[in-house]
């Protein structure tokens, strides 16, 4: 059985103009110890999907339809008390900005010990011992003395390490990392990613990596899911998707990478903007920006179709595949 199985997840936001759909019919599975990347530009619904898996959407957001089966339990149906037992304990989350994720008025030790004691019956010194161990695991020097320090006494990279240590504190089965390195500089970023990968592999922890950085996805994940305007447009093995992108949007994303451009030439980009969720175009949501759009794309919304190792939601890809089959 899969560790996490998301089935037809729909997240809506109630608003003055009626509910808008932020996540539309998203389904995926994650095995224990597997690493999945969710990519897409800002507003594609990546982070919302992450929060929905914890069933922790802030009003006015809500899960309209669908199931989030974590270890067989439907997170959507559980009550607050049951959810609290899973959150932090079996499913942890790492945020984008380490500057604001730690509580500024509590010491590192207090925050770690509190997290431990909230879920387990431990004595203070036992909890401190585990905290020190976890800090050592994320390669923080002199972990004993860090316990008494406040977040502002640590650098950004150190803080993100502490946050990873807190996420690992209760040996969760799944870590959701929401842009874990965006706020860090490039060298620290590489260290943190390597650390995250190492820890996930060593402890057999599942990882959902939410990012807009395809490079990071390549480094860390086995499978990738590309989202656009709240929908999954392409999903498959990371290597396949990156090397041989099928969906025009994925192709656009990859050719927009700075590494794909010769020095001196302007950077490539996908023309236009992601549509407002309030006024999604009819048919395929990507068609106004798509170079291959046909009349069919403006009428009918494509659904995910599987080809070998990847699933793609695109009428054009579908047509090309059928033509090759006929030949």
């Amino acid at each position: 059985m899969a560790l996490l199985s998301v089935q037809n997840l729909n997240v809506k936001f109630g608003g003055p103009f009626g509910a808008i759909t932020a996540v539309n019919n998203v389904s995926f599975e994650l095995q224990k110890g597997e690493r999945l990347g969710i990519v897409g530009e800002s507003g594609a619904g990546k982070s919302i999907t992450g929060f929905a898996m914890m069933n922790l959407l802030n009003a006015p957001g809500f899960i309209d339809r669908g199931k989030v089966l974590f270890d067989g339990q439907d997170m959507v149906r559980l009550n607050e008390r049951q959810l609290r037992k899973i959150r932090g304990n079996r499913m942890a989350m790492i945020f984008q900005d380490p500057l604001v994720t730690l509580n500024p008025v509590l010491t590192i030790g207090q925050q770690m010990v509190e997290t431990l004691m909230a879920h387990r019956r431990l004595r203070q010194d036992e909890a401190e011992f585990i905290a020190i161990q976890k800090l050592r695991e994320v390669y923080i020097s002199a972990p004993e003395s860090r316990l008494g320090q406040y977040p502002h006494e640590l650098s950004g990279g150190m803080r993100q390490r502490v946050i990873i240590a807190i996420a690992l504190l209760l040996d969760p089965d799944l870590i959701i990392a929401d842009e874990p390195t965006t706020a860090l500089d490039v060298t620290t970023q590489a260290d943190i990613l390597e650390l995250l990968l190492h820890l996930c592999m060593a402890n057999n922890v599942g990882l959902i990596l939410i990012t807009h950085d395809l490079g990071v996805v390549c480094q860390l994940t086995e499978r990738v899911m590309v989202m656009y305007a709240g929908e999954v447009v392409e999903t498959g093995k990371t290597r396949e998707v990156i090397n041989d992108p099928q969906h025009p949007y994925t192709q656009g994303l990859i050719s927009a990478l700075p590494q794909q451009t010769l020095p001196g030439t302007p950077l490539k980009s996908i023309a236009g903007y992601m549509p407002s969720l309030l006024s999604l175009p009819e048919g395929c949501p990507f068609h106004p920006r798509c170079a291959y759009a046909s009349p069919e794309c403006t009428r009918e919304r494509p659904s995910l179709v599987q080809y070998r190792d990847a699933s793609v939601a695109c009428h054009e890809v579908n047509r090309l595949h059928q033509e090759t089959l006929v030949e």
Partner: protein
Amino acid sequence: MSNSYLSPYSRFFQSDLTIGLRHHPVAFVSLVIFAILCLLAAFAPLLAPFDPFDTTQIDILNSERPPFWAEGAEPAFLFGTDDQGRDMWSIMLYGLRLSLIIGLGAVLVQTLIGVSIGLISGYVGGRVDSLLMRLADIQLSFSTLMIAIVFLALTQVVGGRAFFAQYAPFLLIVIIGLAEWPQYARTVRATVLAEKQKEYVDAARIMGFGPVRIMVRHILPNSLASIFVISTIQIANAIIAEASLSFLGLGMPIAYPSLGSLIASGFDYLFSGSWWITTLPALLLVVLILVVNLLGDWLRDSIAPQHVPEAG
């Protein structure tokens, strides 16, 4: 744990707040005066040469003696005596003690009620928030003095003077405390609304913490700055409210006078030459309020992060 980090004690003495105090003479002097006043109040029974509540020590023949520098002063009575022959110095010490106790007590009541309501209102939001804040609006639309006057007058009539005299300090604490909680509730709610947006609150929820723990352990400590600042203002307000009520004859009875009732009792003698019975306690009250307000100003300047304290 290791000993390489600072002890809370040295942390306090090396904190920006303590260092800032050294460079802020007005605040420093205020703090010293406030500390002296608190010590005087705390050790009133030891410091006072007479026990103003012991009738055997009071002699009506000693009434209206002037303070030591004026003509006709009795050396035993440093600051003279009041109209009943009580030593002004002793009775002012006890009065200061009562005023401070009632002021601090009332603020404690306000803090307890106001902070809990503000936290719940801000954190839970929605209908609960609307309901609590409308209650606060209603409470604020009555003036503190009006509520207190009505309530205290009723208690005096219903309970009788003896009953009233016995429970006056508690009544004053409760009434001033109840009348002013919305000040706290509003400030705390506003702070909580701002803090709630921060990611550490999301992080706490993701760690599986319950709402009470998040409110008390995570949001409250981050809201302490504004609670401190408003507390200094409220302590001054509460002492003034108590003094006003006592001055109007609705507060502490003259047998157990606070600074306010002392001022009131001397008021009748102000123009007959015994000016000190009113003026000395009034002076003490003014110094107390001034010092608390100056401290509050300094605290606001140093704690509020958007406010850079002037180097001076």
